[in-house]
């Protein structure tokens, strides 16, 4: 028996050891087809104004991305996230970026640093502070960056990551988020509605 056969056997054992009911629970995040929770909660934008998810809702759909400044994964994707945000806004997608991290844990995630980052990236969408992490908790978000894309009827159509290479945009093979956005803009369900990537755990505020 070779290593590949051992691997297959082991994977099967792992699979068999996983009850389907538990495996189907997902990571605890918002289920596909549901509407955005706390959509009217106002959060402080980098321009000082208070903005909610409902405020930015687009005619074709709404993209909510939980992200932050300090996380190496968020940094790796930040230019692509800014480009996607700016370009799909022109296609009728409302976009809001939410930082739910407690800046007491990473000062780089503070509001002033968010302002600087948004400016440096040329970000046109709001980049807001979820100051008690309540919105992230309501979404069941757990990692940065983590995208939730709602279709024009307000139902969650895609949940997951940006693409398959946070380190190098030139080596991306699967553009999960833009594929999903194209589908939603076209009024169709995304082919791959849920994806995952490694990322930083959201550093939740503990006072809520």
């Amino acid at each position, binding site marked *: 028996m070779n290593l590949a056969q051992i691997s297959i056997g082991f994977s099967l054992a792992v699979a068999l050891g*996983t009850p389907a009911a538990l495996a189907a629970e997902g990571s605890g995040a918002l289920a596909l087809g549901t509407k955005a929770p706390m959509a009217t909660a106002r959060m402080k934008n980098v321009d000082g104004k208070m903005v909610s998810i409902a405020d930015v809702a687009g005619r074709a759909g709404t993209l909510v991305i939980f992200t932050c400044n300090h996380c190496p994964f968020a940094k790796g994707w930040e230019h692509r996230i800014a480009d996607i945000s700016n370009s799909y806004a022109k296609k009728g997608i409302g976009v809001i970026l939410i930082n739910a991290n407690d800046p007491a844990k990473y000062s780089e995630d503070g509001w002033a640093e968010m302002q600087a980052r948004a400016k440096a990236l040329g970000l046109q969408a709001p980049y807001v502070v979820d100051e008690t992490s309540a919105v992230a908790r309501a979404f069941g978000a757990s990692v940065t960056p983590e995208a939730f894309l709602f279709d024009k009827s307000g139902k969650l159509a895609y949940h997951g990551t940006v693409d398959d290479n946070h380190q190098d945009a030139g080596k991306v093979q699967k553009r999960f988020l833009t594929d999903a956005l194209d589908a939603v803009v076209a009024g169709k369900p995304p082919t791959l509605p849920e994806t995952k990537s490694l990322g930083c755990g959201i550093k*939740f505020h503990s006072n809520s």
Partner: protein
Amino acid sequence: MPHHDGRRCRSRAASGAGIALLCTLSPLSGARAAPDASVTATAVRSAPLAAILAEAKASHAPLVLVNVWATWCDPCREELPDLLRVYRAHRVEGLRLVMISADDAEARAQAGEALATAAARAGIGRDLDATSYLKEDDDMKFIDGLDPRWSGALPATFLFDAAGRRVHSWLAPITFADLDPEIRRQLTKSGSGAKRGGAGGAPGADLPQTSRRRNP
């Protein structure tokens, strides 16, 4: 079987299941010097998850604790001392520790140094025989291969039994108090804890369990 990067590896026939490659601490010939001269960097090599888990199973350890971490991840580094304390407490009963780094390949030496330094501080030093890898698979395959319920947030820790079944997942930073009771329970269940006088835990369900505590 050839070995690289100065690892001290030994091949072992796994009863009817092929060859297991077990690597223990040894100097890294091509690595940067560790910041602490008394610490020898842990060997870290790239491997797909299926091979990592197959090697762990082939070691015949009654329990295998798999931790996914990264050098840049503060909660990962913060939990390392407790993780190593748990390992030190139970390795005599056969607990095996597998560390999988999500770092870039360029950080291989840094990952080895970080592990070795943490091991030295935990009082394990050069006796640490944890096997250390860099993740090689794409993220979704890797994440779902360990636990489909895992979102991918670092750090995360998983416990496998001798048959290669995942018996517990900790999808958040851990402490000694999080890990120790479950490891005692599983060791007792496997017979390893009871044989060596390990304390038994409360009987529980046989289904894989998950601890989902928020990141601090």
